[in-house]
């Protein structure tokens, strides 16, 4: 009955595309959503692979997609779904197929390929991808990874081997024309491999789509197979659309907004909490094979127990509610798991894996015996127990009663780069600088190579922390945050609790009412291993210089700065941020003050939990609110306003205008500096161009002379080649100058516009 219902639901969903209004269709077409991995089209008879691991986290999406990807700047979509199972009456290339949500079709039935990773042992090898519209030979197929084309055949199958030299190869099928050749090097997200078409068997023989699959060594099967690519495609598509990819520890987290609930059936969960575990104090909740599980932590001991078991295992869970138990050492878990088998007394087997309470998901792996009818082992198999966080909390711990901790979904650092963008290098310096792109304004770093799980607890548990990091020039890792406020808060927390000072750097933090000196902060920032000369040159001297600007007076290096005074901490923050970014800080006063509010709230929760005293403890965020609050609500009337300052003391529209003016002033300053840098670069490029032109003329004369003497001489040919080479270089230089001039023009226009705003407000913007 369930299968029948699922089938009917599937058909109804598909038919919506036929009978719905055009507005409704447009809405569905443009609102990206997807079913989870392994959630195959219900009409498919085989099961998929519900593996949330992202085996290829760095891949680009194999079609040109994104909000402005079209040649006309319009959005380009892609639609992952079945080419076999369609609603009745829908044509193979019917527009009704070009809708969200996506469907995984790895392991889909009606395919006879040997697929050891599929539940049935056979099935579809990869993922079928429809382009933005059913137009043949129009849409670009892009390389997903840097690599080399190792095969192109008459059936337009292209195989690319990744340049990471890790044995990964990917296939692109059904393209026409193919635009790459064997042994050609391809670049991730750049090289156009061909156009999406319908070639199969050397003729137009399938729907217009790209078949994409990848081979690699499977970690459990221990052999090379076609791997699940759906999660990697979801992550790369999210990035292409400017969404956080939700990949943490190489696992795709669940997005409650865009990931559709499973309609595959077989995932019915008991409506009542298991009697044996009712009222148990669980640290976090997880979903395992459709059952709701609880993690019970007691010292280093960890148990994973059934709370609401899947209906198919209710009886077994009543008999044995503890699925996994063992011990944690650091973040490594080792213990036993049970395999429900009533006749053999639910045998246990060894299991291990990396576990963290604030992970979005984790996998425990072990080898268990396959038992025969007499309960004796006849074989062994690798068992993977996958646990996904029951609520999407962005990887953060839960609050009391399982309520989510500060929500982070969908937030990204406002000064970060858009996906695919790269920082500009001007005068050897990156713009925007890493400290801004990471929203970690003093670039607090941790040693390179340190895993996220082994970072200090205050970092791991900080709201809005990302497990992906930038690295600085020493290969240390710069902690990256999702919001500016989270970054400011982290800085303030560091000053209060972590900054090392004292004669032998024996003190941690300057306390809840910090009064540090510039000299102390310089030493704390440089770290214990640096010489006094280094501290003076790299930190203290610039601090003194910048402080004189922001405090509008000289600040001695041993003057105590009372950071409980809002104006002092704002000036001190800008002093420190200025040094890291190499330019006027971009952060606004509102962002700063709301960041301080966040830092104080998190500090209160961390103090309650004793994070700094006990590295094992997990904070409960009772005072800290969702990150969005510190962006949207903080400072609004009647709800914890930022501390008043002379410039923001006036309420109402004038205060708002003052804040905007402050931001505009800061931006003007930044733009002026960039304009100067660009002008310098332009001058340098012009000098190089002139030099090249002069050289070119000289060579042209030389070539003419040689040709008149000995037309086919070796020297003349060599000079000819050099001439062509120089001409190409000159073209490149001219293009760069044009590009620089365009940027200068845009900046000048922006500057003028901003000045006009200032003029309208009758204010001097500086």
């Amino acid at each position: 009955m369930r299968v029948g219902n699922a089938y009917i639901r599937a058909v109804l969903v598909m038919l919506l595309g036929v009978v719905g209004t055009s507005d409704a269709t447009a809405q569905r077409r443009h609102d990206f959503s997807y079913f989870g991995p392994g959630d195959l089209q219900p009409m498919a008879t085989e099961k998929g692979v519900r593996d949330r691991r992202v085996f290829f986290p760095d891949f680009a999406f194999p079609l040109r997609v994104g909000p402005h990807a079209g040649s006309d700047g319009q959005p380009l979509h892609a639609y992952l779904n079945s080419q076999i199972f369609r609603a009745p009456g829908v044509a193979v290339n019917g527009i009704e197929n070009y809708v969200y949500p996506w469907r995984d079709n790895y392991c889909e039935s009606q395919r006879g390929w040997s697929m050891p990773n599929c539940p049935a042992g056979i099935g579809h090898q990869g993922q079928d991808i429809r382009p933005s519209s059913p137009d043949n030979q129009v849409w670009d197929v892009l390389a997903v990874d840097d690599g080399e084309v190792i095969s192109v055949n008459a059936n337009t199958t292209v195989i690319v081997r990744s340049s990471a030299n890790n044995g990964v190869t990917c296939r692109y099928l059904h393209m026409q024309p193919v635009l790459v050749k064997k042994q050609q090097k391809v670049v991730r997200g750049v090289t156009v491999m061909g156009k999406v078409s319908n070639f199969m068997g050397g003729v137009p023989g399938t729907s217009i789509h790209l078949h994409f699959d990848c081979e690699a060594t499977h970690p459990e099967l221990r052999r090379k197979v076609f791997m699940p690519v759906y999660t990697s495609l979801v992550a790369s598509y999210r990035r292409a659309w400017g969404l956080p990819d939700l990949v943490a520890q190489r696992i795709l987290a669940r997005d409650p907004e865009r990931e559709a609930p499973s309609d595959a059936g077989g995932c019915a969960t008991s409506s009542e909490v298991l009697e044996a575990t009712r009222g148990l104090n669980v640290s976090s909740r997880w979903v395992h094979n459709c059952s709701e599980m609880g993690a019970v932590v007691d010292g280093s001991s960890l148990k994973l127990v059934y709370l609401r078991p899947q209906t198919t295992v209710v009886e077994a869970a009543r008999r044995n509610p503890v699925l996994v138990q063992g011990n944690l050492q650091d973040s490594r878990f080792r213990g036993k798991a049970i395999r429900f088998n009533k006749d053999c007394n639910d045998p246990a087997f060894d299991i291990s894996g990396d576990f963290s309470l604030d992970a979005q998901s984790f996998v425990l792996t072990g080898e268990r015996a396959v038992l025969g009818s007499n309960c004796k082992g006849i074989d062994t198999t690798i068992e993977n127990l996958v646990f996904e966080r029951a609520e999407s909390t962005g990887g953060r711990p839960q609050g009391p009663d399982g309520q989510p901790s500060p929500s982070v979904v969908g937030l990204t650092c406002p000064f970060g780069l858009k996906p695919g963008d790269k920082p500009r290098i001007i005068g050897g310096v990156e713009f925007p600088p890493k400290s801004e792109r990471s929203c970690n304004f003093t670039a607090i770093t941790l040693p390179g190579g340190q895993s996220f799980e082994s970072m200090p607890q205050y970092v791991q548990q900080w709201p809005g922390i990302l497990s992906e990091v930038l690295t600085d020039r020493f290969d240390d890792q710069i902690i990256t945050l999702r919001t500016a406020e989270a970054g400011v808060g982290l800085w303030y927390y560091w000053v209060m609790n972590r900054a090392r000072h004292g004669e032998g750097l024996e003190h941690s933090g300057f306390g809840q009412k910090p009064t540090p000196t510039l000299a102390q902060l310089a030493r704390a920032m440089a770290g214990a291993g640096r010489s006094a000369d280094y501290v003076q040159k790299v930190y203290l001297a610039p601090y003194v210089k910048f402080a004189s600007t922001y405090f509008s007076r000289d600040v001695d290096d041993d003057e105590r700065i009372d950071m409980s005074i809002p104006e002092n901490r704002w000036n001190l923050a800008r002093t420190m941020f200025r040094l890291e970014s190499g330019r006027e800080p971009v952060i606004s006063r509102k962002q700063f003050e709301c960041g301080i509010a966040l830092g104080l709230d998190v500090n209160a929760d961390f103090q309650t939990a004793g994070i700094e005293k006990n590295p094992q403890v997990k904070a409960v965020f009772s005072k800290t609110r969702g990150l969005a609050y510190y962006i949207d609500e903080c400072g609004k009337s009647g709800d914890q306003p930022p501390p008043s300052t002379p410039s923001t003391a006036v309420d109402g529209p004038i205060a708002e205008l003052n804040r905007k003016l402050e931001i505009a002033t800061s931006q003007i300053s930044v733009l002026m500096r960039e304009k100067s840098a660009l002008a310098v670069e332009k001058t340098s490029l012009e000098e190089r161009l002139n030099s090249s032109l002069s050289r070119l003329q000289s060579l042209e004369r030389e070539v003419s002379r040689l040709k008149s003497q000995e037309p086919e001489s070796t020297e003349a040919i060599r000079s000819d080649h050099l001439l062509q080479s120089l001409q190409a270089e000159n073209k490149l230089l001219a293009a760069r100058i044009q590009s620089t001039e365009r940027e200068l023009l845009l900046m000048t226009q922006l500057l003028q516009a901003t000045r006009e705003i200032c003029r309208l407000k009758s204010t001097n913007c500086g």
Partner: protein
Amino acid sequence: MRSTPMRGSPLRRAIAGWFLLTVVVTAGTAEAQRSQLPVDWSDNNTSGALESFERDMARTPRPKSLPTSRQLSLPRWGFGIDLVRPNANERARSLSSTTSTTEIAWPSCAAAVPKVGEAEGDTRDWYSDDYDWGCISINIMGDRNYDPRLRTEITTSASDCEVKNGRSTTAVTPSLQFDRGSFVLHLRLNGIPYTINGSCLRGAEAFCTNRAAQCALVERLILKGGAPQ
């Protein structure tokens, strides 16, 4: 004799320096993300094939044979000139001891001699060769590299076509209607994963749906290069 005009150009030097740096950095990054599987050259068929191959090479009038360090570090299994009726030399270099006695359901539309396109990595630890017989084309690749982050230790011998005592055996379900046009075989030969990708055009469709015929290809593999390092 005039000197090369651009030899001293700062721009050229800068570009060359940048290129060198890129190569070095890229190589360093790649190195960190790969591991290599050891090659087992010891089984009888492979050692026999290797001896025959080396004899053939010694007989072939070539300017100078490649030093071992510049040869592939894994067996380059591939196909001979006549896949249906291998000659004596090819049979001696075969992976299988039964090459000459087994039949293969080879499509009649296939050209007598394939066009061959070879490719191999600069690191000499992988190769990818294309064989094009017109209506049917086959790629065979072997690769010693894998991603160490997968924490894998390949201990099992898992192949779509089991090769035992030089003979392939097949235990795979017949292909279904949507498979037409292509086939894939994953093999483990000499401890290394090899993949055979086939494409069948008009006239050769039956081959792409005939698993037994595909597995019989394994018996036609002959040693075309590689040497123990």
